């Protein structure tokens, strides 16, 4: 099954598809480029990422370049997004949260448009399903929440608060400190990246299975067309479900970043 999917994605070529899962995500370089041992080749993922980012940037630049007191349709829509993020920031971080609205809005809109490439016709590949994107976004979030902690509480107080939470018997620190270290500084950015990555990979495979099932099974006569018809009926449902997942993941990434920032702003009690 997986081999059929991979082959269909590659234009029906069974030859040379060695690793079927990777074949769904890894596309050959259009312009091979290598600088200082880094692979900077331009492939389909990068092109899609550029396109979607440019789209979002243009939308915001056009909509909010000359804001009116009575907003037009586009400006009202963009203000709705920003206001939504602002509500999250104020609710979770508190009054100081307004400082982080630009960062959180960038996260939300950026992740949303990159994810939405998954169900955009002719693109059909989310750049966030390559680990580099979510990992880099999580790295930014990690640097920000540690930076905020050091800035708000001071280096010693912040790391002291994380590693040696007060109000605990001294002997327990032997167990507690490694767990706190792992969960605060390693698992937080790690799960942030993996959550987005895993959802996009799973979603892309689901979309590919549905669409390729239509493509492969619908014309096959004795019984195959039943499967094809089922997939055809299921396709809109799958797309709707994926749209829900796309929005949810963008929201969760933004919200968790806000939660982590808020937790490093106030000292542990």
């Amino acid at each position, binding site marked *: 099954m997986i081999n059929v999917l991979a082959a269909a994605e590659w234009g029906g070529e069974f030859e040379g598809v060695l690793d079927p899962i990777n074949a769904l995500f890894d596309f050959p370089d259009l312009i091979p480029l290598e600088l200082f041992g880094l692979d900077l080749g331009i492939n389909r993922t990068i092109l899609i990422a550029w396109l979607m980012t440019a789209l979002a940037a243009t939308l915001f630049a056009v909509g909010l370049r000359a804001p009116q007191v009575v907003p037009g349709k586009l400006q009202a829509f963009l203000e709705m997004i920003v206001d939504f993020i602002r509500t999250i920031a104020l*609710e979770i971080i508190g009054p100081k949260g307004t400082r982080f609205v630009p960062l959180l809005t960038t996260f939300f809109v950026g992740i949303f448009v990159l994810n939405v490439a998954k169900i955009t016709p002719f693109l059909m590949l989310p750049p966030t399903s390559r680990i580099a994107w979510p990992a880099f976004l999580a790295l930014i979030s990690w640097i920000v929440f540690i930076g905020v902690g050091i800035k708000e509480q001071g280096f010693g107080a912040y790391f002291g608060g994380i590693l040696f939470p007060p109000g605990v018997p001294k002997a327990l620190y032997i167990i507690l400190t490694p767990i706190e270290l792992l969960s605060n500084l390693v*698992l937080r950015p790690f*799960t942030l990246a*993996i*959550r987005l990555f*895993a959802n996009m990979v799973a979603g892309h495979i689901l979309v590919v299975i549905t669409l390729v099932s239509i493509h492969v099974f619908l014309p096959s006569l004795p019984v195959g067309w039943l499967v094809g018809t089922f997939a055809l009926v299921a396709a809109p449902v799958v797309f709707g479900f994926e749209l829900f997942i796309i929005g949810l993941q963008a*929201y969760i990434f933004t919200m*968790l970043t806000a939660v982590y920032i808020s937790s490093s702003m106030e000292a542990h009690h």
Partner: protein
Amino acid sequence: MEGTLNVIGYGLATLGPGIGLGLLIAKAIESMARQPEAAGMVRTTMFIGVAVVEALALLAFVLAFAL
């Protein structure tokens, strides 16, 4: 039959978070139904809890490919 045991391992690893998410979201819905005015706060806290519970399944997802 071919394949790897990793897939079975991933399947097993989803059981715990699956039960956990069920309990967590059921309780969240319950409290939202009891106190609709606290729905916003409950929802936020629920997503934070979901994120923590999900971590185990996410680790399994990575390890299923990595090991």
